[in-house]
């Protein structure tokens, strides 16, 4: 054994225990087990120092809580440790390629974070007088200019809070337009089977009946089926382009022509705009409304599930019906049109209490300025190049759902290649976790059996793409060689093994409650 001068071993001992080793505490080295905050003793503590309150509560009209609010308060060091420990149980784009198709997990620049925190943006009240918010309104105006220029559309509603909220905004504008033209018999929305779940959900929400459009063998909208279904009862079609199979709709100009000829509007789900930004303008494709996920195309962070931001660009036909508020160039600078009167008399209403996701506007605008017109175009090109590279490298072993021709920003595989191996798409995805990658989107789109949708984005280096492809090819080889256990019991190396989702749904336990005061409830037990 090698020892230094005070007797400390300087090389590992060769017979160190390996697999099957368990710690005495049940912990896993530096990966800490972390109890819920409710399972600590500090129910009456606090980690915030506040001034002595002025006496008296008589202005509350006797409405004071009978029982004090019972929630634990932790000191600052305990709080920091709690959340840092929890954070280490998460995967993140900052850690490795995050190939969730349709979700666009690209790099989130930290300059954007810094600028969104400038007090002039972060500490600004939404209802401060307009003279006090001229810079904020100017930023919204400039963001709108970039979005309109990049999409070739004449108007944009900035206020929707996320993609699905944007879809709702777009359909409400369409409904208002039809109502204004006396076209109230239009009760149908057509959408492909491959659509995001939010499309039919939003259409139904607005009171439309949803009818599905068929798909051709090469993964595109079936024009003949569309033409047959485009009656005077159709209010709109909702088509994603590039579509959820990662393919550009070749017949897009014909799709919009047929739609308009039938008196319907073309709602484009803009979730995949990142594939074509700077290369194709949706306005040139005949789109009437399209939401733009600023958290996808324009890099604002996903934050573990929001906040997103979903501005909607609108055609001339729909622009008059945009929701309030919007920024207006006045005589003494900018102001806001906030009420559905006078200049906004045709506005269909209001989507949210204030003006939209300003924090995301700042980040997205900083991203646009950083890339510029040339960089955004290059980013789209690299996103498409990366996806095609993955498709080319994996296609020898895995079955591409649509092998002919290039894909756009995502590569779609099905599970034909796994037939007879005993390994499912879910198993394969979970095994990717053991290799250090987040699984791809699985079982979506619904039109492909056992779908695996891989979106690398432009943020990946060639070395990371190769590392990813090598890992997947290694796994594919193992699956085809009959190493089934590696998959069916995966993941083995994650903070937890596979979770029992059925148990969670059958016995919903959605909040922590003590079994009796001060006593933790018994853990759920699998049946």
């Amino acid at each position, binding site marked *: 054994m090698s020892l230094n001068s005070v007797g400390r071993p300087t090389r590992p001992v060769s017979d160190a225990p390996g697999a099957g080793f368990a710690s005495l505490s049940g912990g896993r080295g530096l990966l800490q087990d972390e109890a819920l905050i409710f399972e600590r003793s500090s129910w009456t503590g606090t980690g915030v120092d506040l001034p002595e309150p002025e006496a008296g509560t008589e202005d509350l009209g006797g409405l004071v809580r009978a029982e004090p609010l019972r929630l634990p308060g932790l000191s600052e060091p305990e709080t920091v440790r709690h959340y840092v420990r929890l954070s280490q149980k998460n995967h993140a784009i900052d850690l490795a390629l995050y190939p969730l198709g349709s979700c666009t997990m690209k790099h*989130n620049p930290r300059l954007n974070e810094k600028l969104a925190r400038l007090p002039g943006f972060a500490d600004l009240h939404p209802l401060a007088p307009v003279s006090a918010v001229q810079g904020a309104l100017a930023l919204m105006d400039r963001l709108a200019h970039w979005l309109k220029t990049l999409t070739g559309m004449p108007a944009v509603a900035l206020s929707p809070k996320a993609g699905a909220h944007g879809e709702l905004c777009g359909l409400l504008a369409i409904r208002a337009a039809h109502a204004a033209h006396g076209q109230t018999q239009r009760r149908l929305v057509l959408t492909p089977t491959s659509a995001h779940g939010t499309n039919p959900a939003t259409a139904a929400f607005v009171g439309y009946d949803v009818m599905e459009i068929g798909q051709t063998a090469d993964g595109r909208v079936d024009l003949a089926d569309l033409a047959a279904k485009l009656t005077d009862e159709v209010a709109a079609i909702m088509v994603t382009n590039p579509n959820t199979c990662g393919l550009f709709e070749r017949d897009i100009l014909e799709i919009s022509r047929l739609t308009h000829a039938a008196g319907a509007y073309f709602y484009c789900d803009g979730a995949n705009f990142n594939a074509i930004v700077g290369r194709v303008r949706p306005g040139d494709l005949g789109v009437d409304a399209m939401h733009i996920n600023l958290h996808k195309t324009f890099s604002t962070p996903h934050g573990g599930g929001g906040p997103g931001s979903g501005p909607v660009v609108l055609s001339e036909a729909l622009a008059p019906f945009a929701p309030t508020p919007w920024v207006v160039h006045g005589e003494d600078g900018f102001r806001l049109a906030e009420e559905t009167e006078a200049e906004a008399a045709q506005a269909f209403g209001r989507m949210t209490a204030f003006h939209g996701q300003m924090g995301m506007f700042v980040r997205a605008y900083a991203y646009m300025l950083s890339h510029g017109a040339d960089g955004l175009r290059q980013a789209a090109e690299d996103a498409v190049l990366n996806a095609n590279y993955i498709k080319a490298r994996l296609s020898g072993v895995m079955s591409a759902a649509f092998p002919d021709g290039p894909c756009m920003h995502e590569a779609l595989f099905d599970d034909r290649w796994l037939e007879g191996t005993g390994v499912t798409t879910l198993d394969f995805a979970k095994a990717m976790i053991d290799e250090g990658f987040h699984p791809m989107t699985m079982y979506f789109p619904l039109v492909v059996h056992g779908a695996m949708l891989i979106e690398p984005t432009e943020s990946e280096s060639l070395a990371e793409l190769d590392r990813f492809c090598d890992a997947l090819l290694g796994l594919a080889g193992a699956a085809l060689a009959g190493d089934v256990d590696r998959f069916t019991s995966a993941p083995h190396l994650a903070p937890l093994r596979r979770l029992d989702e059925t148990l969670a749904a059958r016995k919903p336990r959605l909040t922590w409650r003590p079994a009796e005061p001060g006593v933790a409830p018994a853990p759920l037990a699998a049946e």
Partner: protein
Amino acid sequence: MRYLPLDAADRRHMLGVIGAASADDLFADVPLPARLSAPVDLPRHAGEIEVERELSALAALNRPAGAGPFFCGAGAYRHQVPATVDHLIQRSEFLTSYTPYQPEIAQGTLQVLFEFQTQVAALLGMEVANASLYDGSTACAEAVMMSRRVTRRRKAVLSGGLHPHYAAVTATIATAEGMEIARRPAAVDAEADVLAAIDSETACVVVQTPNVFGTVTDVTAIAAAAHAAGALLVVVTTEVVALGLLKPPGEMGADIAVAEGQSLGVGLNFGGPYVGLFACREKFVRQMPGRLCGETVDAEGRRGFVLTLSTREQHIRREKATSNICTNSGLCALAFSIHMTLLGGTGLRRLAEVNHGRARTLAKALGAVPGIEVLTPRFFNEVAVRVPGSAASLVEALAGEGILAGVPVSRLDPSAGLDDVLLLAATETTTAADIDSLVVALSRRTRG
């Protein structure tokens, strides 16, 4: 271009592997007339220095809340957010992760959501809460639509004390879904007025406390009336700090409680992103909108958390979903939860007491200004006052002196006929000197 790792040699190599001659070949499916041959007419890429310069210049044109005496509220409140909160939410693993669809590698986010749901339920005095919605106003609209699913009725009665923008959002979204909205006239003490509008067609009654004029109300009798008619009571709170001190909605008979959570952890952000809190009685849980996190076990029997009851959601149910919502407001929910964890029940109570104390001082000082009348009878940290003449003009004039004196009601609801009513809030960030400056400036103006 600092965000793009590929260089020309990489791109050539990759095109070779793909078997394409150029990147343009990869866009072959785009119809020729729709292809742009050159970048659009916008500036070229820029370095950090240039970008920071442009955005800093824009930020400098704004007057942030911290720049001087500040009294704006009306649904967005300025509070001191501990530095720890903003540091922790910028951890890569929280900031740059997606919705926790793969629970084995998202336990951090999921445990936070479970703790968040527990905190929100306790705060609102309800049995269950979801993992957040976009903001308070959309949460209000979702509550109204949920009441239709529960009662199978179509009419919603909105109190005149409900924030006018919440009423507008609810009317926009819920009428699109086929509901009928009956909004009662705006008044400082409007809540009891809903009683007369409740009938056998009513799905829900929506009341806000503290309401948009700052008035706090015991809604127990309204709950009883709603329940007697087979309707639900939805209680809205736009200032959650109030719940540190006030009786929570659940104790007053609310069936659904929604709130804007912006006051804790999130900040003003010129109106967004914020975080909508949504809680209800357990028996309605399968009609709830939005994401839910639940406890379960893993294959080795260890406790873990997953998104659950997703058969309510759009990605499974498509056109039959309870809501079209896909995302929640995850990072803002995290910020809320961290701030709440730092405060604890004890700290929130104290924070609420400090807020109420500052507001009492403010109300007393305003009441002593000749020509100004305090209208709000019972308040937490915000009051409505009647001023001589136009409140909007007064606010603009005081802004010229560096004082952001509050929100004129005409800004929220121009047709209410309350052009001389001004809303002013005080929080722990308001100093005695701020109140003095306001009073001096107001006295000069109101004396004419």
